[in-house]
């Protein structure tokens, strides 16, 4: 049996990785990155130390954070249509009185638990679009979330819109698309462009890192995982890349939040705290997917919304404080699979519905106001007892991408959508 030599040009310095980096960046520089695989060159990822040089420009790029409100948030409680008598009569025990609402205009007001985000609203950095959703109602949690995150109804390929977005950025940096708070990549990020799901930022290292054993092992791992292109092998190469480049992120995440930011101890708070560290670490992240659970309001809508919106608002407020100057690069949008039914059920809750509200905040937003064409809640305008949809959610996302990621071809990210401008972005 032949065994590769243990000693050689790259013996104990771990410099194989750097050699690969320079080879790769040369290819990139020549605009030939796509040929790397075809030419039989290893598809290994880049090394850590030189990352900043190679990705310097990328690292300062704009970032999109997508907060998925899993379960189907009640848009009518987040953004209350206080001018609608139909809202108050359909919800005898859970409607929110007009007097309690924040930042009212003639039609809408924000749930009182949004208070932590009031400064952003007042600085015009926080906007709302109402009556948003998919063109056709889908009241199944799972298939609605799948459909929203795939966002390409004419294709059977399982590729999510965030994956198409980072794919359109023309670089295959594993840190470009990141899901935080989970090890399972969400549908939106699934696809050919490299992305990573991180349950937490700790321990992003190969075993025995920093020792002679660790150096030898890393070479061995690279050798084993480069031998074929099966899914397990690709996963291993991604892991090696992550280990080399994740250190700076781990260090950032271990530090205290900046600017006196205080995150709630919730899953969302933790994920957004890690998101801020990731952005600050300058590892080239462009899209971050964060999950927020607990929005399936079959019972006790009022308590769930007070707690949930409070957590959401405090987490996001802390996030923007923590980001400091980097906040100029970061735009946040919320998405949920569907809104809730207009009428209460028997448990002071609301079952699955249709039209919903979407929150947009941060860089580039023309905030401090409500957007969308309000269909009203009159019985003739409802869709099977639900708020109708007048704005396709893809139009909101398209507008954000066009404003913040001008190099991305949005017709590739959201094919065949017949885009109509909403007006939320500067």
């Amino acid at each position, binding site marked *: 049996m032949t*065994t590769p030599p*243990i000693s050689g040009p790259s013996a104990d310095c771990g410099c194989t990785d750097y050699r690969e980096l320079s080879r790769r960046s040369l290819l990139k520089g020549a605009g030939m990155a796509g040929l790397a695989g075809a030419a039989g060159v290893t598809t290994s990822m880049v090394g850590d130390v030189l990352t900043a040089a190679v990705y310097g420009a990328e690292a300062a790029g704009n970032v999109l954070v997508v907060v998925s409100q899993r379960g189907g948030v009640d848009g009518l409680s987040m953004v209350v249509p206080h001018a609608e008598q139909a809202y108050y009569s359909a919800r005898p025990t859970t409607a929110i009185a007009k007097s309690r609402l924040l930042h009212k205009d003639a039609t809408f007001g924000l749930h009182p638990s949004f208070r932590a985000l009031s400064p952003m609203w007042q600085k015009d950095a926080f906007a709302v679009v109402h009556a948003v959703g998919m063109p056709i109602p889908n009241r199944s949690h*799972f298939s609605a979330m799948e459909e929203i995150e795939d966002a390409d109804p004419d294709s059977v390929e399982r590729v999510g819109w965030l994956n198409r977005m980072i794919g359109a950025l023309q670089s295959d940096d594993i840190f470009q698309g990141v899901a935080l708070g989970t090890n399972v990549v969400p549908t939106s990020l699934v696809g050919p462009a490299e992305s990573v799901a991180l349950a937490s930022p700790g321990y992003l290292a190969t075993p*025995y890192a920093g020792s002679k054993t660790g150096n030898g*092992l890393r070479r*061995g791992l690279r050798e*084993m995982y480069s031998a074929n292109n*099966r*899914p397990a092998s690709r996963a291993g190469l991604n892991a090696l890349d*992550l280990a080399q480049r994740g250190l700076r992120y781990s260090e950032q995440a271990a530090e205290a939040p900046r600017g006196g930011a205080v995150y709630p101890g919730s899953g969302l708070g933790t994920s957004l705290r890690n998101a801020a560290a990731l952005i600050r670490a300058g590892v080239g992240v462009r899209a971050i997917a964060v999950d927020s659970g607990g929005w399936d309001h079959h019972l006790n809508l009022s308590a769930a919304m007070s707690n949930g919106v409070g957590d959401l608002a405090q987490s996001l407020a802390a996030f923007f404080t923590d980001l400091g100057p980097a906040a100029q690069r970061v735009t946040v949008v919320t998405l949920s699979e569907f809104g809730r039914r207009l009428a209460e059920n028997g448990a002071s809750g609301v079952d699955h519905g249709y039209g919903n509200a979407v929150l947009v905040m941060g860089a580039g937003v023309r905030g401090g106001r409500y957007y969308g064409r309000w269909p009203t809640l009159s019985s003739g305008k409802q869709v099977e007892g639900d708020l109708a949809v007048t704005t396709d959610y893809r139009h909101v996302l398209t507008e954000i991408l066009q404003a913040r990621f001008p190099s991305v071809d949005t017709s590739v990210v959201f094919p065949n959508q017949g885009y109509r401008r909403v007006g939320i972005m500067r």
Partner: protein
Amino acid sequence: MLGSVPSASPLNASTRHLVDRFAYGVTDDLVADVRSHGGAEGWFRSQLNRSAQESLTAALIPTWFPLLNLLPQVQYASHIAGVRTADSVGNELIAQNFARRILSRHQVYETMVDFWSNLLYVPINEDRSFPWRTDYELTAIRPHALGTYRAMLKKAIVHPAMAGYLTNDLNYKDGINENLGRELLELHTVGRRYSEKDVLNASRMLTGFTVNVFVDYRAAYDANRHYTGRINVLGFSHPNRAKDGRAALDDMLGYLAGHPFTARRIAERLCTRFVSDDPPETIVKAVANAYRRSGTDIGATLTALVRHPQFQKSRHLKAWTPSDDVVRTARVMGLEPTNGLAMADSFVQHLVATARDMGHVPYRWPRPDGWPETSRDYLSASRVLRSWQHHYNLAGTSGDLFRGVTVADKASQLPGTWPRTLAQLTQHQSQRLLGRPATRELVYAVAAALGKPSTRSYRGPGALSDTEYQLLRGTVLNSPAGLER
């Protein structure tokens, strides 16, 4: 004892594939079991009958967790009092399942308990259901995991844990709550092939059940809350005139269990777990047909799956989920838990924590659709990094991790004849731990990790230091083949 008898010769490739998919890692005992049943076919049949005698250790596992059997109201009271939180109760149930998966001879049964628990999904520590969660597994899932899906569905849907989790206790004739009704159709039976009218009708049929949540969790049926009047769901029709609607509901659940769409959904899910992420249509059809023809019989359905030619064509196409990886690693390393007496630092509890660190613990998925059955969802870079580390941890032989566990003697895990080169030892361990020959790259990696040439000769087990032993075995599991099953 696991791994105490060196295996004579490895299983043939088709048998190996069967046990890779339906057992939590191949041990010498498992190989002996397969041989004693005359091979794959006989072993699988005996597994479906659960005819094998359990070891004493395996039989005693429930006694390690005596508090799991407390009444629901006591479970809740001790949670409120802070004596035993919902979270720690949940960890015990998972630890008990891990122990069974490691020690039980009924590997197919334990595999299917996990599969059905992930389909008729109730998480472990959800507020409205946790006091009933252990009872749910013991009365709804385990008795039927190799029986019929119809019987299991009928038990699971009316169980207080399911009612609490999907708010069916809040579903009554004047206040229909569609939560369980919708998931019954979408997740538990026909898939997303229902109308909104079907959801409403199914929900109406489900009215009447109560659970006294956040008080004493007493569960009952209140016929006064049951909706009466004709119910139409996906071709099922019932006058539903009786005040007590349980018999009518039973009819509806029986109908739904046998519906062709349900057969299709169950077959797709089984094939996604046991064949490949995108199973060929021919095998899905064959499995669905077997399910229908047999009247939802699980054994007949699984038999059709493993006998179909596409099953054998799927070798190595699935990946170990993190929690299965942890259990598999313990088994192939020869680690045999000996107790878990509710000790937070016992070996089985460490295994649960390890699975959590790798991002996947059974019954801890946050949504009613259960963990993904697709392998690609578990191949994230961070999971792989964690697996690499934990494989080394579990390849060790001493330390805080190894409390309440018997660690197999080094000599029993290594070849019987010496001297052996490092390359030969790698070959031996690759066959032993993975059932596959070592690749050139694996031999290189072991040598690189040990900092020794692969031609290095060892005179006997004692010549291999504990550290070398750990690096050797951990690196074998850390090859790409170690992620595949």
